[in-house]
């Protein structure tokens, strides 16, 4: 399907405009604009990110040791990712060539707790209403409260899975949101014995429920394979970190790229060299940049990140239940990469299962409770930290002056990597489901379903949880609003 022609229509002023603002049940604030011709054919579709945050600038001139705490305010859903990516970058600045075993394991525990809670939040709270009830189901029930009424056990497990992940974060970072556990060069705390006991008591159940969540997604795929394999599907390359031996590793690794056919095109790119392979393009209609692989350029070099990329990019997942699920997932692709937008949910639940298994294994490690926390060495003036955040590859890059103040900051967040992919997905959906039809709330929700699959964090700050109204405006050629429909 050729969707690139839908980025910018000809004769834009003669087309009618439909705006979805805000996109609901995602984190942050974005809007979608559709331009339609007289026959109702979609001629242009764009996802705009309309928030401007400015972190990269106002972090300049601040002392580097303050950065991991300050930048996590980017996000209330996955602050741990920013906290850890910043610390990983600043480990280089303080000369910590390697962390102590205690610090490394505590950070990993924190991170996998973050993956677990964020994936649970996204699947159960934000996306399951669409998947369980249907994209055009009654809008008043298409939310987590509706799920709790119709599928109480699913909702209960979702809520408690997220709670467990939040407890892992509290035990390692000090708070469920915006903690301060990691510092440049290591950590500032051990795991408390009470927390270890409490988490160990529940972890087996979390693994069991995560396995059930994978089964639930597979059941949904089996029930409507045409929809799940075709909805918003388009080909692209993928990128993620993988461990040196090819294993999935969400905390640390090297960059690997595959083309749309699944062939590895770049491998073992050290995190410090990310800028030699990734460029960023700016477009006038969005505050979010468009990253691309430099070798291929902006038009051909864009790629997908996140669970769908990671599960297919690694050679294996180093935990048994998740690895078995990965194999089944890969088999579903019949030798090719799976590009189906809705397969993100399947891959995401496999990762949630992996996170639960990693947490179980880590909790038995005595290093968490005892041992040195900090490493130091010769200070440097620059560092890059890359982590696989719940939504995909997250890059933090800092330069620090002789006076210890940050002089340069570049952040490429997960959702930014997926910018072109999300735009392509909504164009595919608009072309397939909306073109030529009278627009209804349910049809427009198809667009949001495609965006939601990527679990975008549009501001890395807030999320709407379906409470925000969906506004559709029909705008005439002269820019005047001809009609307006409000939901919610």
């Amino acid at each position, binding site marked *: 399907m050729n969707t690139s022609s839908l980025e910018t229509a000809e004769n834009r002023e003669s087309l009618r405009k439909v705006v979805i603002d805000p996109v609901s049940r995602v984190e942050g604030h974005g809007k979608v604009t559709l331009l339609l011709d007289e026959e109702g054919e979609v001629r242009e579709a764009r996802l705009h990110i309309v928030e401007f945050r400015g972190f990269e600038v106002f972090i300049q001139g601040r002392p580097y040791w*303050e950065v*991991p705490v300050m930048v996590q305010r980017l996000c209330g859903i996955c602050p741990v990712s920013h906290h850890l990516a910043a610390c990983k970058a600043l480990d280089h600045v303080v000369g910590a060539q390697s962390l102590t075993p205690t610090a490394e394991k505590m950070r990993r525990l924190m991170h996998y707790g973050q993956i677990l809670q964020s994936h649970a939040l996204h699947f159960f709270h934000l996306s399951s209403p669409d998947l369980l009830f249907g994209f055009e189901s009654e809008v008043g029930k298409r939310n987590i409260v509706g799920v709790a009424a119709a599928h109480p056990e699913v909702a209960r497990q979702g809520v408690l899975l997220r709670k467990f992940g939040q407890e892992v974060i509290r035990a390692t970072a*000090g*708070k469920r949101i915006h*903690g301060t556990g990691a510092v440049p060069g290591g950590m*500032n705390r051990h795991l408390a014995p009470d927390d270890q006991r409490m988490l160990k008591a529940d972890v087996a159940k979390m693994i069991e429920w995560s396995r059930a969540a994978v089964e639930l997604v597979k059941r949904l795929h089996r029930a409507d394979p045409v929809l799940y394999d075709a909805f918003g599907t388009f080909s692209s390359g993928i990128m993620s970190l993988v461990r040196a031996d090819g294993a999935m590793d969400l905390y640390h690794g090297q960059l690997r790229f595959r083309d749309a056919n699944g062939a590895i095109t770049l491998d073992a790119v050290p995190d410090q060299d990310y800028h030699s392979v990734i460029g960023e393009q700016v477009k006038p209609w969005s505050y979010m940049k468009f990253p691309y692989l430099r070798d291929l350029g902006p038009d051909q070099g864009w790629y997908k990140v996140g669970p769908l990329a990671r599960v297919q990019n690694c050679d294996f997942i180093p935990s048994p239940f998740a690895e078995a699920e990965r194999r089944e997932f890969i088999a579903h692709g019949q030798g090719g990469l799976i590009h189906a937008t809705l397969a993100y949910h399947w891959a995401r639940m496999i990762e949630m299962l992996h996170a639960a298994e990693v947490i179980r294994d880590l909790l038995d490690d005595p290093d968490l409770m005892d041992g040195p926390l900090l490493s130091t060495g010769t200070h440097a003036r620059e560092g890059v930290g890359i982590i696989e955040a719940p939504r995909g590859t997250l890059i933090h890059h800092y330069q620090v002056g002789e006076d*210890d*103040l940050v002089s340069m900051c570049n952040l490429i967040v997960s959702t930014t990597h997926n910018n072109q992919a999300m735009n392509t997905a909504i164009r595919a959906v608009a072309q397939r489901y909306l073109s030529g039809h009278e627009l209804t709330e349910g049809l427009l929700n198809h667009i949001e379903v495609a965006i939601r699959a990527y679990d975008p964090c549009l501001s890395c700050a807030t999320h709407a949880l379906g409470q925000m109204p969906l506004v559709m405006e029909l705008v005439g050629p002269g820019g005047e609003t001809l009609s307006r429909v409000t939901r919610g």
Partner: protein
Amino acid sequence: MNGRFMLDGQPVMFEEGQTILQAAKAAGHYIPSLCWHPDFPPHGSCKLCIVKVGGRHVSSCALQAKDGMEIESNTPEINGERRALLQMLFVEGNHFCPSCEKSGNCELQAQAYELEMTSARFNYFFPVRPVDASHPDILLDFNRCIFCELCVRASRDIDGKSIFALTNRGIHKHLVVNAESGRLGDTDFSALDRAASICPVGVILPKRVGFAVPIGERIYDEKPISLVSMEKER
């Protein structure tokens, strides 16, 4: 001559030469303060220790206790005035507690909790106050200065260096460094100076420490400043 005054209806004994604040604290009654420090003479600038004596506002850190005084301190009216003073201090500077490394050890923050300040109330000034990171061991973040002059006094009276001073008046008042360049790195300031560890807020900070002590395990995280302050001086 020793004597006795009434503080919020409670009798407080005092010794000759004690201020109201000293006598109250010695008797186990807390009066909030920011610029007062037991190692220095009264300064009377923050006004947080105001009390009412015979219906008149006075700085309890500066006024000597007198026999028979009737003093109001822990009343809704006076605590409301103290809260307003704190709110003015918060909006006059740039106090971003969520990312401030002094959080939990900061007396301004602790007083805001103590006096139940739940909002800034006034419009923020957002003054432009660049940091001074020129010293190899100490960072100066002027954004958080509350003009208590404890660093000025410590550097002048204990360290004998007179590194710091307040300049200008009123809303233009600000802390400066006594060097031709205005930079701390061009003075003989040392991280071992008394002035280096006396700042009640997050202006004078040792470099490269940051969040080494977790939030939640800091001085005022577990106990309110009213208790910590009384224990420290006991």
